[in-house]
C-alpha cells in the first residue's frame, strides 16, 4: 500500500511500465471519468478539491507518458528504470494517428469523452469492454455457449469474416451500417439474445 502522494505516473493510471499508447489512452479515459466533477464513482468519498487535484496529476501523467521523449526521461531520471522499447511499440502506427493529437485538456464531464479504443489485451484493466453489448462482450457470450463463428455463418448465411469483424468492431471490414446492423441482428438472435437490445447498445462507428 502506498500513500497517494507517492504513486508514480504508471501507478496513478493503473498501468504497467510496458504499457503502449493504446493502454495509456484507455487508462487515461477511465481515470478522467473516475475523477470528473459529475463522476458517480467518486460520489460521497472525494471532495471537489481532491478530484481537482487528482485530475491535475492524471493530466501530468498522461502528457508525460504519451510523449516518447518525456516518457523516456521520466523512466530514466525519475523512476530509474529501463524498459525494452520494443515491448511498447506494438500497434504504435495504428494507434498514434488516432490518439496522439488529442492533448486531453478540456474534459469537464464524462459526456465529453467518447471512448473508441477497445484494444490492449495486456492492459492492466481487465474490463476493456466499453459497451454493454460491444464486440468483445458478444464474443465472450458466444464462446461461453460453445458456438463457433462458422456455425453462425452457416446458419445465417453471413460471411464469417463479417461476423468476426463485428466482434472485433473492425468497421473498415464491414459493409454500410444498414447492412451490418442486419448482420448483427441475425448474429444476436442466433446467440439467443434480444436483437433490439443488442442493436441499441452496440456502438457502430460514429454511432
Amino acid at each position, binding site marked *: 500500500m502506498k500513500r497517494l502522494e507517492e504513486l508514480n505516473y504508471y501507478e496513478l493510471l493503473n498501468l504497467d511500465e510496458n504499457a503502449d499508447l493504446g493502454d495509456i489512452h484507455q487508462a487515461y479515459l477511465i481515470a478522467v471519468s473516475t475523477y470528473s466533477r459529475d463522476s458517480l464513482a467518486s*460520489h460521497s468519498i472525494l471532495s471537489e478539491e481532491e478530484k481537482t487535484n487528482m485530475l491535475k496529476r492524471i493530466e501530468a501523467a498522461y502528457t508525460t507518458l504519451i510523449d516518447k521523449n518525456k516518457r523516456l526521461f521520466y523512466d530514466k531520471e525519475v523512476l530509474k528504470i529501463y524498459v525494452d522499447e520494443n515491448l511498447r511499440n506494438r500497434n504504435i502506427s495504428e494507434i498514434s494517428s488516432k490518439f496522439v493529437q488529442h492533448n486531453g485538456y478540456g474534459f469537464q464531464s464524462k459526456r465529453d469523452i467518447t471512448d473508441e479504443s477497445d484494444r490492449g489485451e495486456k492492459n492492466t484493466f481487465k474490463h476493456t469492454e466499453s459497451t454493454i453489448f460491444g464486440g468483445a462482450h458478444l464474443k465472450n457470450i458466444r464462446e461461453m455457449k460453445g458456438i463457433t463463428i462458422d456455425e453462425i455463418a452457416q446458419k445465417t448465411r453471413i460471411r464469417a469474416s463479417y461476423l468476426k469483424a463485428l466482434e472485433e468492431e473492425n468497421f473498415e471490414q464491414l459493409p454500410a451500417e444498414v447492412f451490418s446492423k442486419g448482420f448483427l441482428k441475425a448474429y444476436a438472435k442466433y446467440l439467443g439474445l434480444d436483437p433490439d437490445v443488442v442493436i441499441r447498445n452496440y456502438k457502430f462507428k460514429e454511432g
Partner: protein
Amino acid sequence: MSNIDTPIIPDEPRKQIWAVGGGKGGTGKTVVSASIGILLAKAGNRVIIIDADLGGANLHTCLGIRHPSTTIADFLLKKVTSLDELLLETPIKNLRLISGANDFLTIANIPFAQKQKLIRYIRNLNSDYVILDLGAGTSFNVLDLFLISDSNILVVMPEPTSVENVYRFIKCAILRRLNNALNNSRFQDIFRLATEARGNESVKTLYDLLERVKQIDSSVAADLKKKINTFSPKLIVNQVRENDNISLGSSIKDITKKYLGVDLDYSGYIPYDEKVSESIKRFKPLVTEYPNCSASLCMNLTMKKLLNGSKLSDGQEEVEESRNEEA
C-alpha cells in the same frame, strides 16, 4: 478446528463460503446470490444457500419456495439443534436452502453469543459451497458474516446511494477485519478515530492508521498490513442501464485502492433486464427460467470470473495466503 499440524495431503478440497453483501438494500444481492447458488449447483457442486438477511429475508421467493417450513429463526430460538435440520430442498438439484423468513421481528439483532454459534454451525455445514445472502447495512452481524467468507462479493448498482453505501461497507469491513485480528485495547483509540474520520482528521486512510499503529508496535502494524493485503472483495455492478455504467466498476476499484487501501477485483457487470422482475413475479429463479436473457448470460460470465479468483485466493479470517494480484 484443531491445532494439530495440517496434514501434508488434504483429504478433500475445503468447503468454500461465499458471502454476498454491499451495504444498500435493493441492489440485487438476493437475485445475485440465488443465481450464484444455482449456477454452482448446476455445475455439479453441492450447494447450501443461506438467507442471512435476518429480518428482511426473501431468498426463498427467488428460489420458488413460497412458504418455507423451517427458518433460521428455529435455530436461534433453539427449536432445532443444528442447521442441518433446516435444510430445505429447492427445485434445483444439489441446491438446498436455509431460509431466513422471519417470524419474530427482533431477529435482525441477534446477540453476540448466538452469532458466534451461528458462524460455528455455518462453518461445519457439509457442502462444497455455502452462499450467504447478507442483509443491508453495516451492522457487526452483517460484517462478521461477510468476513468469515472465503469469497467476499459486493453488489453495487449505478446510483449514488448504492455507491456511497458500498464505500462505507468496504471501509467498515476492513476496519472490522483489522479490529478482529488485533483484539487489543492499546489500539482502540486509533480505531475509533479511523471509524469516525469524516474530513481531514489525523487517521483518514488505512495508511494513516498503519502509521499510528506502527508508532506503538511495528510488528502489529506488519500483521495488519498483511490483513489488508489479503482482503480482496469482488465487485459486481448490477442493473447496468447505460454503457457509461460499465466503467463504474473500474472506477470504484481505482478509488477504493487509492483512497481506502483495499484492492477490489472487478468481477463483472449485469445489465438491467425486465426478465429479472418477471421471474420474481412468477416465483421462478431467473437463471433457470430465462437462461438466455442478458442478465442470465452476464451472470454466467461473472460466475466464471468469480470461480477463477476463488481457487487462487483464500480470504478466510484465520488463513493467510498471498493474494494473486492480477489473475
